């Protein structure tokens, strides 16, 4: 089976000299959900920003068979939908419907079609009644759903979600996980939330100092890197 994303020997260094990625190899196959674990500053977010062409390091990246380069950035960005950690960054148009339609309009989709697609995407995430509200009037959970609708509307083949459950209350987290479970796209889930990873992911990778230090099932990696804080605390108290 052809991988949807194939990353080979990716290196990236920020302007201040910080080495953020130091030889990353990664593959994502159709239908998979891969959890990306790692400490803060280990390179997880830097890595996913490369998949959408927002950062350009040294190494090879292929998305749906296309080599990621400047000339096909628009097509790559349509294939890889990136949902940012801070939904406020992603919502900048005056109304929800205009915000969701922003992507298709940029892709050159006709206005009527963009409106129809945006409405359908909002229905998919259960936010259609808020179509004409201003995004900043929504709750954190609603903003996250609208942000996801803004990505789904571009009909991506891969969803990259950076800390999707951060700042959501438990009902909001459950609703979001239910939604993500229903979405058919392959997913990369950057998260510290092991419960979300257990529910959604069928594979995981662990970032350490800009490299993938471990790869396997979610449970294997949680155990190997002592990543389940609750379980560790319980063990300590016993």
């Amino acid at each position, binding site marked *: 089976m052809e991988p949807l994303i194939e990353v080979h020997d990716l290196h990236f260094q920020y302007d201040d000299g910080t080495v953020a990625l130091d030889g990353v190899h990664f593959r994502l196959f159709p239908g998979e959900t891969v959890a990306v674990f790692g400490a803060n500053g280990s390179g997880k977010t830097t890595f996913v920003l490369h998949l959408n062409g927002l950062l350009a390091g040294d190494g090879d990246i292929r998305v749906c068979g296309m080599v990621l380069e400047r000339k096909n950035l628009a097509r790559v960005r349509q294939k890889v*939908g990136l949902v940012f950690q801070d939904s406020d*960054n992603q919502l900048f148009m005056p109304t929800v419907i205009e915000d969701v339609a922003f992507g298709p309009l940029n892709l050159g989709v006709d206005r009527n079609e963009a409106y129809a697609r945006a409405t359908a995407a909002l229905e998919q995430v259960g936010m259609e009644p808020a179509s004409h509200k201003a995004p900043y009037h929504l709750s954190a959970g609603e903003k996250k759903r609208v942000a996801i609708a803004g990505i789904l509307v571009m009909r991506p083949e891969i969803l990259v979600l950076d800390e999707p459950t951060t700042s959501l209350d438990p009902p909001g987290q459950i609703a979001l996980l239910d939604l993500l479970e229903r979405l058919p796209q392959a997913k990369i889930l950057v998260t510290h939330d092991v419960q979300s990873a257990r529910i959604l992911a069928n594979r995981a990778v662990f970032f350490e100092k800009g490299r993938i230090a471990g790869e396997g099932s979610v449970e294997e990696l949680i155990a190997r890197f002592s990543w389940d804080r609750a379980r560790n605390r319980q063990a300590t108290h016993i």
Partner: protein
Amino acid sequence: MIHRRDARAKTIAVLVFLIALATARRNFLAVGLWYFAILVAVTIAARLPILAALARVAVVVLPFTLVFAAISLAAGEPLAAITLVGKSYLSALAVLVLLSTTPLPELLHGLEHLGVPRYLLMVVQFLYRYLFVISGEAQHMRAAARAKSGSLKRVFFDRSKFGAAAGAMGVLFARSYAHAEGIHQAMLARGFQDRFRTLSRHAFRGGDAAFLMTAVLLLAGARVAIEAWI
């Protein structure tokens, strides 16, 4: 009704207003009162809070214009002082009504159709978006400072407070820069290239033409008539 009019019609109407106002020399009091009445009527028709709009314009405009008006008064030219304050106030009120009845993307799209360079409009759009970013960051920092019993009272008279406030300003801009970078990345990730596209059809209909003609008649025509009769 005003809200539904095409951005081009409203922009041209405001331009006509500004030109007619700026070039009014004789009988400014009568022309100014007429224009003020028109703006009040439009503000009410657009269902904008009239008193808040009048007060907001006064807060923005008067501190600057009153200084120059005072200079004119001191030079023995009271009419020039009144004209200066009146023209500034009415101009700002007209622009406020335009901005309050036209979403910014629509307005920028209308300006693009009227030939304003696209890059200039993008700068305006980003400036507008990032003003909210800076203001949001400033509010967060203010709340954090208050939570730690910080206050800006007597900031200009207390050297240590002034130093801390200056440092906070630096942090504010650094944080705003980081936040703005995040917004820009989110826009690029959704295919943003060089222009904002909106769902609106931007059709200039008969109603827009009628609105524009009425505006020109009420503004330019009425001024000519007032100047001829009084």
